[in-house]
């Protein structure tokens, strides 16, 4: 797959730029331009330019921390469930592989909103989930699932689980099976072979999967709104309300920027810890 583009004709030097042009154009129009507008909005309020940022940081710390906590919880849960499943599909599923992958993607055939609504029904006070947990004495007789932290984190996990499974599956799938055989030939136990060969080679997938889960989960506003009580609202809901209900655009815009900054810092720290330079 090595590049042979060093030939030097004018066209082949231009080719890479032509290839990225549509993507760059798209980003300019739909990311860079809106971001600049948003930045202008965030400093356009009455008073000094940082006024809205002051309010964003001063009044909504609770919501930021809550969002990060919930998103982290959902990411860890999705990893705990997604990794074994991806492993099974990649190594053990045999002919069922495509079917299982199809099932993972299947929920996307219905909209996000409808799927989350379904959880409202499932978690109802009079519904089967509450009944079962009460019979098992896990939940108090007067207890509930809907409109609790458990429901919100559960909803986030459910909705973003496929984004965890698919990248992990891809990185597991491309592992050369002979490496595992080699490890076993060299007297490693299956567990050691997994720990020393498979797991490190699948880390890029884990990294990508966690980001694909964590980032949208942090900014999500549907799950908290439908499955949480007012004491579980996340920063996404606040931004949405400030934009649409209060119409305090500077505050909403600055909240968005703070959120972006927080997520970027988190991701950089995570990348550093995981040290996966091949992702760059």
């Amino acid at each position: 797959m090595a590049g042979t583009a060093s030939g030097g004709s004018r066209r082949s030097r231009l080719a890479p730029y032509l290839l990225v042009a549509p993507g760059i154009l798209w980003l300019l129009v739909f990311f860079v331009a809106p971001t600049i507008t948003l930045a202008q909005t965030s400093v356009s309020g009455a008073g000094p330019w940082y006024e809205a940022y002051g309010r964003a940081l001063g009044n909504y710390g609770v919501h930021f921390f809550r969002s990060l906590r919930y998103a982290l919880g959902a990411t860890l849960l999705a990893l705990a469930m997604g990794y074994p499943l991806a492993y099974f599909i990649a190594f053990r599923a045999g002919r069922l592989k495509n079917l299982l992958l199809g099932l993972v993607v299947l929920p996307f055939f219905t909209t996000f909103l409808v799927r989350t609504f379904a959880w409202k029904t499932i978690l109802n006070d009079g519904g089967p989930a509450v009944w079962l947990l009460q019979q098992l004495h896990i939940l108090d007789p007067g207890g509930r699932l809907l409109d609790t932290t458990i429901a919100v984190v559960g909803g986030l996990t459910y909705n973003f689980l496929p984004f965890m499974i698919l990248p992990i599956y891809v990185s597991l799938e491309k592992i050369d099976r002979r490496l595992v055989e080699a490890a076993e030939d060299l007297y490693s136990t299956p567990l050691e072979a997994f720990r020393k060969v498979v797991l490190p080679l699948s880390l890029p997938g884990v990294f990508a999967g966690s980001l694909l889960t964590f980032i949208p989960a942090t900014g999500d506003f549907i799950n908290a709104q439908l499955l949480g009580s007012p004491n579980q609202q996340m920063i996404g809901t606040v931004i949405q309300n400030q934009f649409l209900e209060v119409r305090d655009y500077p505050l909403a815009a600055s909240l968005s920027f703070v959120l972006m900054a927080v997520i970027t810092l988190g991701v950089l720290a995570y990348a550093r810890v995981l040290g996966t330079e091949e992702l760059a």
Partner: protein
Amino acid sequence: MSRRQSDPRDDELHALLRQAINRRGFIRRTALGAGGLVLGNSLLAACGGGKEGAAAGGGDSAAAAAGGGGKTLRISNWPLYIDKQTVPDFEKATGIKTEYTEDINDNSEFFAKIDEPLKRNQSIDREIIVLTDWMAGRLIKLGYVAPLDDAKFPNKANLVDNVKDVSFDPGRKFSVPWLSGMTGIGYNPKKTGRELTSINDIFDPKFKGQVTMLTEMRDTIGLVMLGLGKDPTKATVADAKAAAAKIKKARESGQIRKFTGNDYAEDLAAGNIAVALAWSGDIQGLAADNPNLRWIAPKEGAMLYSDNMMIPKTDDRQDLAMAWINYVYDPKHSAQIVAGAPYLSAVKGAGAELAKIAPDLASSSLVNPPDDLRARLHVFKALSDAEDTEFNRIFQDAIGA
């Protein structure tokens, strides 16, 4: 039209209502919550002009030739806010092909959708939109709506006197009410274990975690203000803050399970909650499936709102729109609408017509509030833009969003 039922909790009245009212669905306001539609809305807004209108316009040419000059009349209204017969009847009577869409779920959300195109003088591909008083006031002030052509609106004479002159539209030059409704308390006596009479009953610690309030600021703040003995028609920032503090405390203590759009109806029906701030017509609809549910106008008072028909200024089919508005201001036609959507009509004589087709419903206090109930109904103060932002900020802080 007996005035006998002075008490809306009267069992007999409720029995009558159950018989009178057809089974209706739950969702009038947004079941999706304010958030649900944002994605869709912003996409729609991004599309600006939109193709749906063009596609619809090329519809049944035979019918269109009869009236409307081949154009389709496009109406946007709230869900479950009309009977099934009126649109086909109107099409038959006028020959105007009509596309009636229930795509307004929330005033603020709908505003977000139409604000940009109207600001740029672009069409929003609708001839009629129906929005609540305060939002109607905002649109009129922004110059987004066209004046009603009184020459094509002889039935304007049927507009009831008490809404002829409203602060946001003196003389009703730009808007006329579609229907009006009341915001009070809906509850399930089985879960509360007692009848409720007061707004402050929602703060009873016995109902902890089983109470919902509305995300519509004027409804929730207004009712809580009434409970505090303040008058929402003269709401001040201090009043709003007092009400908000009470709401915030209840929210933080876990008393309030949720702030909802219309989705309180599902929670009430499913038994997840015992008490909800609720719109009058909704509970009637639910009563068909859940005969236990009650709606009351609390003794301290209830909120009254109207949803108003308006024509966007960029619309090029205003004649069709006027034909519709004039049609529904016929008392007979208005009565038919109310028979399917039990709210208050603003058309003179609609009550008498309703008595002919649905006598039980016509005497219900929800469609025809008795005088003592009317005296307790309040319309929230018309807020300036600055006040609106201030009140909303206070409210959003109280509800934790």
